[in-house]
């Protein structure tokens, strides 16, 4: 018979990770991306033949700027969550796995910030 309390047994024995957080954020960003990507595709179709000035003034309109920033955040967060699962499923060498995970996470942050900066530069006209 164990002398430990149920709570003590559970601590450190459960998933010891983050429970349903990964699942939840993947769904949440996925749901956000449904309207955002549909809007984005329609917008891209509309500016497909646009010249430089037209495309810039389109991105610079306030609603488009904000929606683009939302899209960038949701997209890069969703992408790195998905890539994480793929890496964890198929890369079994611990060192490689860790390196790939770090690369994906860091890349998502850097590329996301680069995209956001590009949108803001266009929006603020610099």
């Amino acid at each position, binding site marked *: 018979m164990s002398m430990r309390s149920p709570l003590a047994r559970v601590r450190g024995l459960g998933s010891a990770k983050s429970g349903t957080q990964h699942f939840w954020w993947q*769904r949440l960003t*996925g*749901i956000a*991306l*449904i309207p955002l*990507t*549909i809007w984005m*595709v329609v917008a*891209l*179709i*509309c500016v*497909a*033949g*646009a010249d*430089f000035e037209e*495309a*810039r003034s389109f*991105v610079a309109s306030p609603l488009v700027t904000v929606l683009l920033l939302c899209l960038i955040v949701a*997209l*890069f967060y969703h*992408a790195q969550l*998905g*890539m994480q699962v*793929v890496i964890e499923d198929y890369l079994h060498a611990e060192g490689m796995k860790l390196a790939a995970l770090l690369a994906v996470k860091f890349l998502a942050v850097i*590329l996301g910030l*680069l*995209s956001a*900066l*590009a*949108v803001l*530069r*266009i929006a603020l006209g610099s």
Partner: protein
Amino acid sequence: MPSSNRPLSPHLQHYRLPLLAWLSMTHRITGVALSAGTLLVMYWLLALAAGPDAYERAQSIMTSSFGQLVLVGFTWALYYHLCNGIRHLIWDIGYNLDIEGAESSGKLVIVTSILLTTFSWIFGHALSGSPV
């Protein structure tokens, strides 16, 4: 159970994968492809921020026949992942979980993604007036 009767995991070289397995694999593959394809959209955005010359170069790459081919693939991958993602969300709230339902919704995803890709490109070219 005698060990010889134990169920085996599918031997990929001999076992014909069911439709649902292909659909699931395609969801992952399109997810990875879209992550890579996002770099393309990013490039366009960065070029637009950089100035007219960079934008001109980006536009000429995107409108080249290779660029258009990649973009068609990107569009289909996006629509597939979008439609199949919605299918996953419906499963997540507990609907359509039987095999027949999963198969018919899977077929719907294939047809819808192809139709949406076709319509998007027809509309895109009609609106932009480019001849391709």
